[in-house]
């Protein structure tokens, strides 16, 4: 049960962009996928979501090969927040979020309103329903998309099967408070029995919220384990090619990571 990534390799344009990735994710887990730009993080979550069929290996969700499932069936078990979404037509926020409910059977008008309102409240966008999506700020748009994804996925578990929530850089445009709010949603999704995968660039958010880190570099899974354990060695610093300081502020549950910044003192003339 859960999500099984079995020897997955992906090629694009004649290049191997993901190679032999194997991992198992149990229900109730929030996994953070981290790694440098171009490491293959988006590619990996695309393989997990069934959007990209691997050249070798496969991904199974509760035993079913995700690239073999019908799109409609898959859509009831997993939802995806893409890295960026732009639209060319004047849709309201309510309409965009409501799109997430279209696949779910038996959602009547009253229920749709309730669910959309709940989802908008969850991403701190109450009262944004009638605004045009195109006129929102980047961070607001990102939260609208998250609300749509939450509408699509619904409860974390249905019929004893954990659902899969995939978030590709869900915090990239958000301010600090909303970064925390959004990852708290993913955390709660996992705590209630769901499977959550988030691609993150902020190591502190990754360490602070996830049960497990998957570290990608050059299309390979170079480390996979508990955040505290991975922070101990030089592995992260080597992967990102920058020195880091790990600190444990008193009273904090988890350590924090500080990258070593270049000295910016004024140069003597």
């Amino acid at each position, binding site marked *: 049960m859960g999500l099984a990534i079995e020897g997955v390799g992906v090629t694009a344009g004649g290049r191997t962009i993901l190679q032999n990735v194997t991992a198992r994710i149990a229900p109730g887990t929030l996994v953070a996928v981290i790694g440098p730009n171009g490491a293959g993080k988006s590619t990996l979550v695309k393989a997990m979501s069934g959007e990209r069929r691997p050249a070798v290996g496969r991904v199974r969700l509760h035993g079913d090969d995700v690239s073999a499932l019908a799109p409609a069936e898959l859509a009831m078990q997993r939802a995806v927040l*893409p890295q960026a979404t*732009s*639209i*060319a037509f004047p849709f*309201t926020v309510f309409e965009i979020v409501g*799109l997430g409910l279209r696949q779910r059977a038996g959602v009547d008008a009253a229920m749709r309103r309730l669910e959309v309102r709940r989802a908008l409240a969850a991403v701190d966008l109450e009262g944004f329903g009638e605004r045009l999506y195109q006129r929102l700020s980047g961070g607001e748009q990102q939260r609208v998309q998250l609300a749509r994804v939450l509408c*699509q996925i619904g409860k974390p578990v249905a019929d004893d099967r954990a659902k899969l929530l995939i978030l590709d850089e869900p915090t990239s445009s958000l301010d600090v408070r909303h970064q925390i709010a959004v990852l708290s949603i993913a955390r709660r999704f996992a705590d209630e029995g769901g499977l959550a995968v988030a691609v993150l660039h902020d190591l502190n958010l990754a360490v602070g919220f996830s049960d497990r880190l998957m570290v990608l570099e050059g299309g390979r899974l170079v480390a996979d384990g508990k955040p505290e354990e991975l922070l101990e060695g030089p592995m992260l610093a080597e992967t990102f090619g920058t020195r880091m300081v790990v600190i444990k502020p008193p009273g904090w549950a988890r350590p924090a990571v500080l990258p070593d910044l270049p000295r910016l003192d004024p140069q003597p003339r």
Partner: protein
Amino acid sequence: MSALSGTPAMNRAPGERSLVQAAALALLAFGVLATAVLAIGTGPSALSPSRVIGILAAGPKSAAFPLGEVVIVWQIRLPRAIMAALIGAMLALGGAVMQGLFRNPLADPAILGVSNGAALGAVSMIVLGGGALAPVTAILGSYALPLAAFAGALTATLILYAIATREGLTSVATMLLAGIALAAFAAALMGYLAFLSDDTQLRDITFWNLGGLGGVTWEKVVISGPIMLVVLASAPMLARGLDALVLGEAEAFHMGLRVERLKRLAILLVAAATGLAVAVSGTIGFVGIVVPHLLRLAVGADHRFLLPASCLGGALLLLVADIGARLLVAPAELPIGIITAAIGAPFFLWLLMRRRDFEGF
């Protein structure tokens, strides 16, 4: 939840536009019927709306009205009005679906060469139907022309889609440039065919290029009308898919859509709508871009609303244009394509000027 009780109107969530949209649909439907009555009353012998309604209500064989008026209404102007409405619906629907497919409000069959592709198909049939394509004409009879137009439109749409869209992303610049090239190429081939044609054929070809409803008879309505109705009836199938596609191909897949199937259906529908319209009335521009765009701005972009509303809006616009075509130079008649271009082209320019409102691609 107290906010969930109360009158249905109060229940409406902010940003939910279904009530406004239902009202808009009702208003458009009424507008189409009213304009149709006006269109039937317009012409060399003008008839008042109440007289038109009386004659229509009395039936085609009624003796309660002068025979001349009954014939004018039933045999000449009613089929013409029905055709104008159906063609307007086809043109606007083709535009709305094409814009959804390309995820871009500037995509339009007439601007991007799809109409020219259809016209090329039709012209080939006119010029070669007696010669090289004679076996086709023999088998298909009256359906040869609409089918040739459909084939031309389909080819143009497929080429355009293949060129402008890579891995689910459409480049606006490529789309517009490819459309211009396609239109020019089809026009060149039509010019060549015109060169080969005799005088009668040449007159027919000129008619395609300007667009007109002059020759509409019941026979044409009976041949094309039912197919047009099938196209109209199949449009709602696409609505949910096109809504999901607004967010992008990957997102549509994530939300459970069979994206490839959806795109194939959309391409077929654009080609069928454009081909059918062109086969009857020649190329009529700008309906496909003006109508959906105005509706989106005024009442919303949700395709479950936009597709039926575009059909009604297109019907309304073409009926109005047809009235104008017959009034402006009465007793002669302008090709209707001149009227829609005169309204549509400035509108299109205005649209381009305010494009900075939209997301760049």
